[in-house]
């Protein structure tokens, strides 16, 4: 199950969705907004996406994970819009018969989501400036403090 949503991520619902009588293990990963990045303070993040492609890339990742691990249930959710400090922007949850597979699959899914799913994060710094996060780009422009 794959979802892009503007709403807060509800973990009880996710763990209920993935728990299965065939599976003895559930692993849930949440990516949450951190207050400090390299010593700079974040007030909030906003996420934007290329929604149809993000949806289809997440569906492909679920399919690939299911072909690699004996997954019972799988939930991939990315929140869009504003995600304040301490709240979750992404959730990955899988159930498998045994725990090693659940850890491996959830970790792999999260790595691939960060590599492949067209979603972008904008930092809203406590200084008032904002900045798109584009990993590996040599020159990132920052609103208000153009470098």
């Amino acid at each position, binding site marked *: 199950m794959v979802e892009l949503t503007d709403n807060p991520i509800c973990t009880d619902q996710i763990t209920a969705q993935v728990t299965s009588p065939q599976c003895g293990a559930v692993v849930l990963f949440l*990516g949450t907004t951190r207050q400090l990045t390299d010593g700079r303070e974040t007030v909030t993040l906003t*996420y*934007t*996406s*290329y929604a*149809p*492609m*993000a949806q*289809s890339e997440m569906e492909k990742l679920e399919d690939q994970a299911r072909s690699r691990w004996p997954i019972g249930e799988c939930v991939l959710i*990315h929140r869009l819009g504003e995600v304040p400090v301490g709240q979750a*922007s*992404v959730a990955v949850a899988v159930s498998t018969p045994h725990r090693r597979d659940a850890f491996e699959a959830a970790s792999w899914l*999260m790595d691939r*989501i*960060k*590599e*492949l*799913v*067209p*979603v*972008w*994060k*904008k930092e809203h710094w406590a200084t008032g400036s904002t900045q*798109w*996060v*584009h*990993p*590996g*780009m*040599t*020159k*990132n*422009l920052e609103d208000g403090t153009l470098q």
Partner: protein
Amino acid sequence: MIIRIKLFALAQDLAGAEEVTLDVAPGATIETVREALANQVPELKSMLVSCAFAINNEYATTSSPVEPEDEIACLPPVSGG
């Protein structure tokens, strides 16, 4: 032929537009599109080398051909999660 390129995140901000229309020769590839986009929107020039492209919601390679009816997207390095 006329093609339209969707822009996102910093690319959208720098171009000041969600979409850019380009006129490219028939047989154009993603590489052609990248060059034409850099020429038409010079603000994007320095970041385009870091951008991926998608055709109809699938990642494309530099040699992938484009057609007028394709949905083409310029994707700056992603930062979800």
